[in-house]
């Protein structure tokens, strides 16, 4: 009798030790791995990355595509094909950035669309079409949650520089030829899997997005270095008679200068609630 109790007791003690006594340290929780800190509604993070994207698009269009075009640099849909000496269009520059940011762990999605697109595959449909009608009417961002549970934000994409208007109005596939400066030409849609994130993660996502912009620009520089007539890359911006390109440090300094204030307002100075 007592022997049996001792054996049973021994077995259960062993089992208990195996299961709960933590000689090896316990595996950390996902949440504590992510780090703690002040919690921020995801809308604030969307505001920050959208400000960076706007700054990158405006810099790229107004200071590279516009003046570069006058200096003889070319930009086109077929820019990535081997043997084609062109740079990416602003929309494709955004897509390059989107592909870079998506390759990183915080699953941030970025997409560009319109209700009157040059490329039919950029046409909004379903819930995005409804949300875009509101974006166009209010010229303000619209926040929602998708069917699969992602947080979704849609921001107006303004014709912020003259080349936006002229290139779209002149494009043979454009269904609209009457775009004007500052018009809402379309919208950027952002997705993120969580409704809130701590300040630390928000900063990480913001920095990752800056890096994605830099990598996208670097892909253009890499291509330009291999043109039949290689482009000079340095500290100067292109202008009539000077088909040169700024190096990525110069380009990124301009993007950061343009976006910095808005990023700071979104991440640091803002209060609790979402919206812009």
């Amino acid at each position, binding site marked *: 009798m007592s*022997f*049996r109790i001792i*054996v*049973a007791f021994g*077995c*259960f003690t*062993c*089992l208990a030790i*195996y*299961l*709960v006594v*933590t000689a*090896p*340290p*316990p*595996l950390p*929780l*996902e*949440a504590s791995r992510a780090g703690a800190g002040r919690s921020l509604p995801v809308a604030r993070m969307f505001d920050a990355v959208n400000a960076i994207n706007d700054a990158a698009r405006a810099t790229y269009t107004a200071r590279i595509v516009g003046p570069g075009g006058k200096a003889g640099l070319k930009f086109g849909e077929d820019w*990535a094909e081997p043997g084609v000496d062109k740079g990416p269009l602003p929309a494709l520059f955004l897509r390059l950035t*989107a*592909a870079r940011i*998506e*390759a990183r762990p915080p*699953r941030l*999605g970025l*997409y560009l*669309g319109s209700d009157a697109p040059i490329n*039919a595959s950029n046409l*909004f*449909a*379903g*819930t*995005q*079409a409804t949300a875009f009608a509101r974006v166009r009417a209010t010229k303000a961002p619209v926040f929602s949650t*998708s*069917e*699969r549970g*992602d947080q*979704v934000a849609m921001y107006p994409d303004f014709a912020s520089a003259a080349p936006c208007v002229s290139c779209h109005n002149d494009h*043979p*596939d454009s269904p609209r030829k009457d775009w004007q400066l500052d018009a809402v030409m379309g919208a950027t*849609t952002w*997705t993120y899997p969580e409704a809130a994130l701590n300040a630390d993660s928000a900063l990480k996502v913001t920095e990752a997005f800056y890096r994605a912009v830099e990598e996208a620009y670097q*892909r253009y520089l890499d291509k330009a270095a291999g043109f039949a007539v290689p482009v000079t890359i340095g500290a100067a911006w292109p202008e009539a008679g000077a088909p040169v390109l700024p190096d990525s440090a110069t380009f990124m300094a301009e993007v950061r200068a343009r976006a910095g204030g808005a990023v700071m307002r979104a991440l640091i100075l803002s209060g609790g609630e979402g919206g812009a």
Partner: protein
Amino acid sequence: MTLRRSAVTMAIPVAFLGAMGLWTGPAAHWLAQGPIQQGHAEVSCQGCHTPSPGTTRQQVQARFAFAIGRRDSDVDFGNGPVTSDHCLACHARPNERHPIYRFREPRFEPALRAVRADSCLGCHSEHDAARVSATPDICSACHGDLTLARDPVNIPHDRLIAEEKWESCLGCHDFHGNHVFEPPTRVQAMIPGAAIRAYFHQGAGPYGTFKHFEAKPE
């Protein structure tokens, strides 16, 4: 009698642990699934199955703590799930025509109900001796209103689509755009459906032998 009872008592925890092991990860590897596709003959199991963090005992403890409510999140046992990131580590290509991330945009939600185009595993399930596990008519999920402004094909795309010739698409286009292959402009020159199906099941590739980007080996 006494001895038998104590043997039974001793067996309980052992059986308990054994069952816990069998019913989860590592043991399943002894009972591996179907054969991996030929293209991956040279790829080791670890190429796609990453061991979860921690030792087996740490994982058992974490699961036990989770089961009795003393831990907020469960952990993976043995190996973590296979994700598209594993595939992309070897197969990422800058010229991808259908990059999976694009289909995470909300407007593709209805299409994803027909084909999970936002994950490699939506069309390549691996372990079933097939190169592609989807059906050749998946193009219908997204290209239903395609018309080409200057259509070079002798039966134009909008007619092919109106007649629901969805299996014709792969006869003239590969899916990823990774083969060096010009689409023909005459439907008579199309790759026959039987050759496409054979290709899906490990047969020879019908789009020629050259690829823009080769997969990275390990």
